[in-house]
């Protein structure tokens, strides 16, 4: 039943399934149609569904994201692709001031079945303006949901859940995950969208991560294990809401918290994870929580500096050891 697919293929199949299931679904964004998407996510769909369902847009991020909001108001289920999250700064008014607020400020008259997908994160030498991470900006917005699939299976599940939901949902994909492979079982039942997943069990330390940092954390955990430290690795899967229970339950056992995020540390997503868990689990903790995070720098073009600006498995290993030494 479960074959191996690439992450982008899982997204592609999810779109295909939903486009086929409901003709209120349409996809819009730059080069999502004829070109098939800059990361191939919409490959083949233009031919199958035509230009009204796979709409190539001009370079007008604010405009076409707002267009998605308008279409959602009348019952369409738009899936907006912002080519990369770097351009989402131009669309934040549509996302924050419109999509997230209309259901509320209309007194509950207008649901908002809008999905905004965007790849982000630090990829390979894309330089300062193309290595953006905005999770903390979006996390602070009541009315939004944020999913951060780290595997093809989650990409498939969460994109389909997002399209079927009447809430405005942001899907943060990672540019370096598109060509990663993993099993996909299309018939398996999806867990709740916001449910965190324990990717590795261990009694000594809880590592909380999301998106691409999950894989790095697992690699670090394997190395820590060689040194006698068994870390639990939790993949958050959702950044709003956060599944506090799964994390807290783990901390009850490990007493040590390490949060790993690619975002720069100060006021990044990890700040809320640390604060929220400290508030909840203060007396379970045997040591101060730690964050391994990006540096307080824009991302340099130079490859070595780029690599040194975001967490590497060795950084996670070092932090884990330090934390367990306390």
């Amino acid at each position, binding site marked *: 039943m479960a074959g191996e697919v690439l992450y982008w293929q899982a997204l592609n199949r999810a779109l295909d399934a939903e486009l086929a299931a409901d003709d209120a679904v349409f996809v819009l964004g730059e080069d999502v149609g004829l070109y098939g998407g800059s990361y191939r996510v919409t490959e083949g769909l233009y031919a199958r569904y035509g230009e009204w369902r796979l709409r190539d847009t001009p370079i*007008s991020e*604010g405009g*076409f994201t707002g*267009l998605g909001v*308008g279409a959602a*108001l009348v019952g369409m289920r738009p899936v907006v692709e912002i080519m990369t999250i770097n351009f989402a700064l131009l669309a934040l008014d549509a996302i924050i001031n419109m999509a997230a607020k209309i259901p509320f*400020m209309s007194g509950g008259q*207008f649901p908002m079945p809008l999905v905004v997908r965007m790849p982000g994160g630090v990829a390979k030498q894309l330089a300062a303006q193309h290595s953006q991470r905005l999770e903390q900006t979006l996390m602070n917005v009541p009315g939004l949901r944020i999913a951060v699939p780290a595997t093809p299976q989650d990409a498939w599940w969460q994109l389909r859940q997002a399209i079927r939901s009447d809430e405005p949902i942001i899907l943060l994909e990672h540019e370096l995950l598109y060509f990663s492979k993993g099993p996909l079982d299309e018939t398996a039942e999806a867990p709740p969208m*916001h449910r965190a997943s324990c990717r590795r069990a261990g009694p000594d330390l809880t590592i909380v991560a999301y998106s691409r940092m999950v894989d790095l954390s697992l690699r670090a955990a394997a190395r820590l294990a060689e040194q006698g430290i068994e870390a639990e690795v939790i993949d958050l899967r959702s950044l709003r*809401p956060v599944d506090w229970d799964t994390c807290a339950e783990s901390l009850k056992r490990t007493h040590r918290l390490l949060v790993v995020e690619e975002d720069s540390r100060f006021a990044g997503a990890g700040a809320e994870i640390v604060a929220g868990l400290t508030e909840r689990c203060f007396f379970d903790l045997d040591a101060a929580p730690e964050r391994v995070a990006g540096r307080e720098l824009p991302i340099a073009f130079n490859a070595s500096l780029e690599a040194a600006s975001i967490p590497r498995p060795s950084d996670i290993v070092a932090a884990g050891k330090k934390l367990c030494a306390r």
Partner: protein
Amino acid sequence: MESRTLRALLHDMLLARAFEERAAEEYTRGNIAGFLHLYPGEEAVAVGVLHAAEPSDYIVSTYREHVHALVRGIPPGVLMAELFGRKDGCSGGLGGSMHLFDRERRFMGGYAIVGETFPVAAGIGYAVAMRQLPEAVICFFGDGAVNQGTFHEALNMTALWQLPVLFVCENNRYQIGTEIHRHSAVAEVYKRACGYRIPAHRVDGMDVLAVHEATQAALAEIRGGNGPQFLEFETYRFRGHSMADPGLYRSKVEVQSFEQEDPITVAIAETVPAYPSQEQIAAAGPDSIARLSEHLNDAGHLSTDQLEAMKAEIGRIVEQAVEFAANSPEPTMADAVAALECNRGTEVLI
């Protein structure tokens, strides 16, 4: 134009004026707070445009949208309740003056960030075009809004994909305190549409009949499948930008000269042939009053008595609206949470 239609236009303009003036009073009394942007002077636009629309059309508006909502048919009491922040308001008291919504009447919201109306209208238009329905989207905005990037982006997309959107510029010549020649390189707003091949016209926005006619023609084009249309209505607001604005940046001469073109005076002249102003009556003396009343008798449409009756009835409507608002309860925190979660369905999300 039929008498009935003419009377309806006049009625709605008078109601609009009375509603807004009363809202101003209620603001002064402390029953309304926040930003309050009023419409007096511009009534001919909302009334002329919306009387040309079908119930199946969609309306998208700004923060200066009470009158659009009123003319679209949201009951005055429900509107006033929203201005009061009460539960029976059209947005449950959660949206307020700048965020009026009414799903049933396809009133798709008042938006308070200048420029948001454009992409919202384009999106509704996209849905209509995709489903090939005979509906149109009417998008209201001011002269100041046309310098926002979303204006440009939405005009391009609606023209490119031939979406059924009617762009309605209420050009009252001011962006708060900045006169149009100080905010736009081209003060003839309709000329902006040429860069997108959207048919555009400039129309006297103080003349409700001209507004109505231009809108009918534009909507007919849209329903014919010819894509977006653009209308610029030249108008004027008699009051400040909002209740907080003393309007010191406009000369008295300017304000007065526009007041002489008050669309309601103009509409009354149209509807009540030879209806004399109080000054005319006074100036003419008793003899000519007799003469003038003859004109009223040949009238076509409405006698002075009927006009007075209409005004009285409007007074009652507005009074009742205030009463309804004042008696409506406040929304609770549970209402607020329910509104936010209105879209939380049964899907496996949480």
